[in-house]
């Protein structure tokens, strides 16, 4: 029990070390480093709150989305899922951090950077048994015209990598001029 707790703490500290290093590498100034670092640290902390509320047994997808998105104004956020999905603890952090990067991106450059912009997240499961897949559709609309980024940001790299590697699924980002879209496809047996 104590050994497991120690392991969890050490892993979390290593995650924080990584966030610091990656954020520094991409920061344009000390101020921007501080802002982005604290923001990511808080997101990590919130995924832990979510797990603590559920006794570190599972985390709810809907709660994860609400936690990230609702501070940007409930009236602009639509969450549509046939039913909630219970995520295993080891899936909550990567998915939570990926959703955080999408939210930050929307707040800085996308639909949540203007008064009128909207974010809709739809999710559903399909298939059966080992091939059952959770598909999460992130759709931004009514925001500023989207242009594809010129360089691969840390956020994009993290989203693609963590969905592919940590959760053995996929992430597809589409820089549609009408609004960013992202489709995450995740095997349910990894969640």
């Amino acid at each position, binding site marked *: 029990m104590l050994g497991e707790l120690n392991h969890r703490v*050490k*892993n979390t500290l290593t995650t*924080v070390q*990584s966030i610091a290093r*990656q954020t520094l590498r991409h920061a344009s100034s000390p101020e921007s480093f501080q802002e982005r670092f604290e923001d990511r640290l808080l997101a990590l902390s919130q995924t832990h709150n979510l797990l603590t509320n559920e006794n570190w047994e599972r985390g709810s997808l809907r709660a994860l989305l609400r936690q990230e998105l609702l501070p940007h104004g409930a009236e602009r956020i639509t969450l549509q899922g046939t039913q909630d999905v219970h995520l295993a603890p*080891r899936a909550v952090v990567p998915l939570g951090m990926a959703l955080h990067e999408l939210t930050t991106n929307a707040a800085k450059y996308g639909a949540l950077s203007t008064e009128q912009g909207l974010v809709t997240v739809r999710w559903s499961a399909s298939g059966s048994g080992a091939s059952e897949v959770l598909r999460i559709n992130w759709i931004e609309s009514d925001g500023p015209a989207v242009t594809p980024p010129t360089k691969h940001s840390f956020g994009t790299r*993290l989203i693609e990598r963590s969905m592919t590697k940590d959760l053995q699924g996929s992430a597809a980002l589409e820089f549609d001029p009408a609004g960013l879209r992202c489709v995450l496809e995740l095997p349910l047996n990894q969640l």
Partner: protein
Amino acid sequence: MSALSGLRLLVVEDESHVAMLVEDMLADMGCEVVASAARVSEALRLIEATDIDAAVLDVNVAGEKVFPVAEKLRDRKIPFVFATGYGADGVREDFRTHPVVPKPFPQSQLRKALTKAVTG
């Protein structure tokens, strides 16, 4: 030129944040990360398919122990180090002679452990 420059590395780590940290450190040391696995089965496949000189292994990989990977590397005489939140206690007894880097770690410690592994 250090003993590490130009080395082709395999990284086995199931958390992207940590994997990206290790890979960045290795790149700073002049190594080339040629294979990265987040599952034991994937690592075993990559060892078969890729020409690697050394490896950095997390111990607990998505609920599985990494030791089958360590065995395969040992059989092929490919040097490796463990990087783990469990410290040396988490490493199986017959692998305790291999360097263990306890998480979290500074780049200098990973460099030292890896240098020790490859120079013997």
